[in-house]
């Protein structure tokens, strides 16, 4: 374990809480000290939920540790069942409570709770994290609720095309959408509409909006759609093994992926894919002349595996960007991220250290960052435009408007939200042409909102416009000094490559053991590197 100021994922009990709060009729008794109740506000603040999450914390204190904390667990379970009358009960412990070994799951199993299904969660807090905890909770809950329905071994798997004999439309389950996931609420609506156009019904959406009784209807569908592998991959695999239910694993984010998704699903259930007449504006917007300026834009991508892999494909194939970095904090899906990176000639960055991500971002010199809310902070520090593509979220990433990522409308949303932070085609040209004009100095880049050039923040100071009096020589950490005319010359270079030129010139100077970098050194370095 290490201390950090910030983390991509919480401990696994936060994942369990995401499942419980996404559903209806489920209650979670969590053996945890008072301090762990902070998890409530992930839902009440970031998701603006109008209810507390359905969780009862045992909230033991230091002075309780000498007494009977097991009794406290039992009392909390009884009170929660009496007050909330849940249709299913989750029982588990937080990282701190794991150490006192009260075994709340075993305690609950020994209690008379009127026949409510009880699922005991064993989530190793010191080796696993939030998404794993959410996936494990969904899997344990589905397994617990379906254990009486499992067909005996040797039963042939039901055909995904049996709807044809049963005189109904094919139907599928959408598995994985959860609270604190990225745009899940809107993806459900988009995919439900897309499936309806294909002639396919949705049987169960889970966990979001599902009750325990809905989970018991999962086997009535012809197939499962694994929309968010971080949350739903284990439960889909179990439903394949135990019920012979086929899984659609293509995640429909982006035009190509949405087409592949429709083909995979229609092929599975035996339907002819319908013809969609220009369903999304992304392909035309991307071909239109203004988008010429998007060609080869350097993009750095980091997020959960699902969204990072999808973003890399859209960026490289559908928008013509150059992906210069790809990574994820999803260790469970690291193999898939590595494969996607390899296809782009990159090595994937698999880490949960946001400072390592910021470092890789700076080294890659991107012109656009696609990341989580932390990459938005990092990109802001580096002065690079950014769009958020993945959890963890900021309250801003839960918009009031309809804003899916999946399907045709998702592709429209992605085009807008990735392209708008960039300088638009002609605008970039004009800034290049008039860069010595006071109105076009870097401080006036309205789309980045950096404010007036009088600001004295660090990136602003570096971006001193050419007509300002040359500042005193600036020294780097190792004592390398930029002369005033060197800095002035550097300021003439367009801002989006400036940091790279600065770094390359410093490397060149260091290799030659120069003490001072002037304009001549800058041009020597340029000539040397372009050789």
């Amino acid at each position, binding site marked *: 374990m290490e201390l950090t100021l910030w983390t991509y994922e919480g401990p696994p009990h936060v994942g369990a809480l995401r499942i419980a709060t996404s559903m209806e009729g489920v209650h979670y008794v969590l053996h945890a000290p*008072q301090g762990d109740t902070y998890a409530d506000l992930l839902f*009440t603040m970031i998701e603006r939920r109008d209810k507390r999450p359905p969780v009862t914390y045992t909230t033991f*204190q230091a002075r309780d540790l000498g007494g009977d904390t097991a009794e406290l667990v039992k009392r909390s379970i009884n009170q929660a069942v009496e007050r909330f009358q849940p249709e299913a009960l989750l029982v588990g412990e937080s990282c701190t409570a794991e150490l006192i070994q009260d075994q709340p799951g075993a305690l609950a199993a020994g209690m008379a709770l009127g026949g409510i299904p009880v699922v005991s969660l064993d989530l190793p807090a010191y080796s696993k994290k939030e998404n794993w905890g959410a996936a494990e909770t969904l899997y344990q809950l589905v397994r617990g609720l379906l254990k009486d329905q499992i067909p005996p071994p040797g039963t042939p798997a039901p055909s995904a095309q049996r709807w044809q004999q049963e005189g109904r439309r094919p139907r599928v389950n959408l598995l994985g959408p959860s609270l604190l996931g990225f745009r899940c609420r809107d993806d459900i609506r988009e995919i439900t509409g897309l499936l309806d156009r294909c002639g396919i019904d949705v049987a169960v959406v889970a966990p979001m909006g599902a009750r325990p009784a809905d989970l018991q209807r999962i086997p009535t569908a012809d197939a499962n759609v694994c929309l968010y592998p971080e949350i739903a991959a284990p439960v889909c695999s179990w439903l394949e093994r135990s019920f012979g239910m086929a899984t659609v694993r293509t995640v429909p984010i982006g035009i190509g992926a949405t087409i592949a998704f429709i083909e995979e699903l229609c092929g599975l259930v035996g339907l002819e894919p319908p013809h969609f007449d220009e369903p999304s504006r992304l392909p035309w917007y991307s071909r239109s002349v203004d988008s010429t300026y998007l060609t080869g834009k350097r993009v750095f991508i980091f997020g959960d595996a699902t969204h990072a892999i999808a973003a890399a494909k859209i960026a490289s194939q559908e928008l013509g960007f150059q992906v210069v970095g790809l990574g994820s904090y999803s260790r469970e899906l690291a193999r898939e991220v590595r494969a996607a990176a390899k296809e782009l000639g990159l090595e994937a960055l698999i880490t949960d250290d946001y400072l390592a991500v910021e470092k890789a971002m700076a080294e890659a010199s991107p012109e656009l960052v696609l990341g989580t809310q932390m990459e938005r902070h990092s990109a802001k520090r580096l002065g690079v435009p950014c769009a958020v593509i993945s959890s963890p979220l900021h309250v801003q990433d839960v918009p009031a408007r309809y804003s899916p990522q999946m399907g045709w409308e998702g592709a429209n949303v992605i085009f807008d939200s990735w392209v708008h932070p960039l300088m638009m085609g002609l605008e970039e040209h004009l800034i290049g042409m008039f860069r010595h004009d006071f109105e076009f100095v870097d401080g006036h880049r309205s789309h980045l909102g950096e404010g007036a050039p009088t600001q004295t923040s660090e990136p602003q100071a570096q971006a001193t416009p050419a007509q300002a009096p040359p500042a005193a020589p600036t020294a780097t950490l190792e004592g390398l000094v930029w002369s005033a005319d060197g800095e002035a010359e550097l300021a003439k270079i367009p801002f989006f490559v400036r940091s790279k030129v600065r770094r390359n010139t410093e490397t060149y100077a260091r290799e030659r053991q120069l003490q001072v970098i002037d304009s001549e050194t800058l041009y020597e370095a340029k000539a040397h590197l372009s050789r």
Partner: protein
Amino acid sequence: MELVEVGTPYLDRQLLVSELDLLPAGTQISEGQDVERQLDRVRRAKPDLVVCGLGLANPLEAEGIATKWSIELVFSPIHGCDQAGDLAELFARPLRRRSLLSFTA
């Protein structure tokens, strides 16, 4: 202002003895509270304002009870006579906003 209840996760009565003396006599004080029971008491008392954490603010607002984030009292300079006006302003702000909003035609 009439004080209905003061609750805190942890109360060191020795350390805070002089502050506790300043509370009106008979003020209900709760420590390390059971959140559900405390919410029951809030619903019964129907206070005009609840100073609470971010985990409870939106749920209480949704039930029609005005709230003030307690964390603002920690982060804002509210001590002494100079800041008393700002302190009053903190309490007044949510009430003023509620009277301002209207969604009728």
